[in-house]
């Protein structure tokens, strides 16, 4: 393992300022390590951008540019075109990356343009399900009933009242290669990155990245929360190739959604009343619908200890 001053060399080095247990830091390090050194990254504004690049210290050992909040896909398009015209692009993977807010919302147009123009760019969407960097505000990928600072529960509200935007399907509709991964399954994530790298043309990997601060769980439980999300059926992992859903990660026995939701304070309001329990049923229905769509197994309630 190559070292820098006695530290293992990674694309994203230790010493950055992410929260303890940050799923996004883990996911980004795993993903870019899987690509290797021949990469150029355009990064939207967000946690990932800011925690690693407070001047004068950078955590990145690969070429990296941050421009604005919504334009990494467009900047990457220019990078790819520039390399191509100068004959310098051989073997270099151009990456555009950002969080769910910058990808699903403000940067949606730029990403769509990049995808439909067919650039050979890997788009990495790190989905922690809210605008975390600015203090946990609701995004288009915030799940149903989640508390965020702009979708708080109260007398008139159960929290976020919309479903997650189905970004993988929207991206696939552009004809791009799609993969859905999780920081809770590091080997799977890296395998997915490596497989995507073999695709010439636009590819998109959505990486579920649990956020201890934003979701409200202890910082040593990041991997476990990532796995529970998948095991509950609320975050299926799969690929979309030629418009078809393939290579679904098998979940032979699903856990009930409560197992995943209860440890997170962003869902605490659902566990206080019978009305809350009704909401939990609705969330269970989302998981059940996913199970039907992706061929996941039935819910098996674990025997209580």
């Amino acid at each position, binding site marked *: 393992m190559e070292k820098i001053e006695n530290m293992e060399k990674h694309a994203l080095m230790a010493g950055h300022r992410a929260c303890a247990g940050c799923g996004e830091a883990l996911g980004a390090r795993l993903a870019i390590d899987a690509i290797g*050194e*021949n*990469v*150029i990254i*355009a990064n939207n504004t967000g946690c990932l*951008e*800011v925690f690693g*690049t*407070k*001047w*004068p210290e*950078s955590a*990145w*050992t*690969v*070429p*990296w*540019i*941050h*421009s*604005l909040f*919504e*334009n990494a*896909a*467009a*900047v*990457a*398009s*220019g*990078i*790819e*075109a*520039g*390399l*191509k*015209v*100068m004959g*310098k692009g051989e073997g*270099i993977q151009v990456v555009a990356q950002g969080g769910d807010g910058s990808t699903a919302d403000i940067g949606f*147009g*730029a990403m*769509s*343009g990049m995808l*439909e*123009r067919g650039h050979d760019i890997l788009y990495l969407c790190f989905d922690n399900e809210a605008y975390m960097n600015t203090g946990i505000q609701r995004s288009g990928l915030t799940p149903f009933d989640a508390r965020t600072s702009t979708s708080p529960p109260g007398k008139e509200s159960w929290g976020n009242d919309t479903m997650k935007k189905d970004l993988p399907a929207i991206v696939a509709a552009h004809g791009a290669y799609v993969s859905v991964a999780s920081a809770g399954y590091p080997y799977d994530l890296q395998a997915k990155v490596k497989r995507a790298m073999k695709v010439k043309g636009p590819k998109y990997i959505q990486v579920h990245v649990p956020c201890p601060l934003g979701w409200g769980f202890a910082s040593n439980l990041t991997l476990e929360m990532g796995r529970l999300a998948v095991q509950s059926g609320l975050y299926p992992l799969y690929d979309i190739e030629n418009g078809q859903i393939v290579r679904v990660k098998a979940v032979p026995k699903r856990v009930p959604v409560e197992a995943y939701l209860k440890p997170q304070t962003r869902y605490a309001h659902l566990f206080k009343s019978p009305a809350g329990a009704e909401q939990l049923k609705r969330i269970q229905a989302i998981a059940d619908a996913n199970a039907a769509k992706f061929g996941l197994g039935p819910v098996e309630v674990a025997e209580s200890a």
Partner: protein
Amino acid sequence: MRKVVEGSAAVSEAVKLCRVQVISAYPITPQTHIVQNLSQMVANGELKAEYIRVESEHSAASAALGASAVGARAYTASSSQGILLMAEVLFNIAGLRLPVVMTCANRAVSSPINIWNDQQDSYSVRDAGWIQLHAEDNQEAVDLHLQAYRIAEHTRVELPVMVCMDGFVLTHSYEPVDLPDQATVDEFLPAWKATRILDPKNPKTFGMYSEEGYSETRYAIEKAMLNAKDVIEGVSAEFEHSFGRHSGGLLRGYRMDDAEIVLMATGSIIGLLKSVADDMRAKGKKVGVLKLVSFRPFPGEELAKALKGIKKVAVFEKAVSLGAPAILASELRSALYAAKNRPEISSFVVGLGGKDISEQTIHRAVEMASAGYVAQHYMELDEEFLRDLAAAR
């Protein structure tokens, strides 16, 4: 070679001669002909460039930024709403010190929506850190593009350049233009040797969060702007040496030597002002014209020098800063504030939304300024329309 061509065609030819490597294109009247022409050149194999059909002006500027960051010569064009939409990217490109060149085909901004010429668009982004050069005619529009990359890529500058040309008035008019040959342009404008690029062989981090060093980085741009004044003059002089005609530079006087009143502006209106000045001179009135080419950097010292001894200036501008005095007039007044015996500077807003500016309009303004100080006057407003507007509220 001298040809009668549409302004847009002349400019696209100039851009081709600059051997731009990445073009990002998004349509907006009245610059669209430029990017359309470029697409045909690329399609014909006449221009070896990557042409990105982006999905918005915000992305047009962003793609140019990305291309420039890997060391490719990047170009885009826009107007009006497109300039405003990409505004944050313009600040970003300048902040990152990337030598992108862009044509702004000056057009009015909404609301109300209007496709015709005025300079509100480029004037509105004057704080972004872009060098802004205004063309008087289509020849100067061609020439400024050739000079723009030299200025932008100069190691003492490293700032993006916006070449402003009046929409429709210049872009869509046919004038005889000399289009230089590739060999002479290549000698004048060699390939860009970028030193700070994104490169896996030498990884760097661009666009960092900055508390320490933020002010200093902004100040560094101001220094670069000051350096740019020399560079703009130097490149203009070299241009004249290579191509045999004067174009560009910071400013240019016309019949100013003994002028009692000087008419000042940016852009194509200069042609009209020169024509009126000639008329007035013929009738014995000593009128001069001062063309400001470089709006950014604003050459305050050079303007003060040019206007030394001049008693009156009438500033004409096709822009406004709503809630404050007009922009060009204000900046000139400000630049001359400390000068001893500074001229009286009157301000006239003309031509918004393509409103026709006649010789009579200029004559009237000169009369007003000659009679006394005009703090600000919007010329040729339709009084009846104004009454209707007031009544409708």
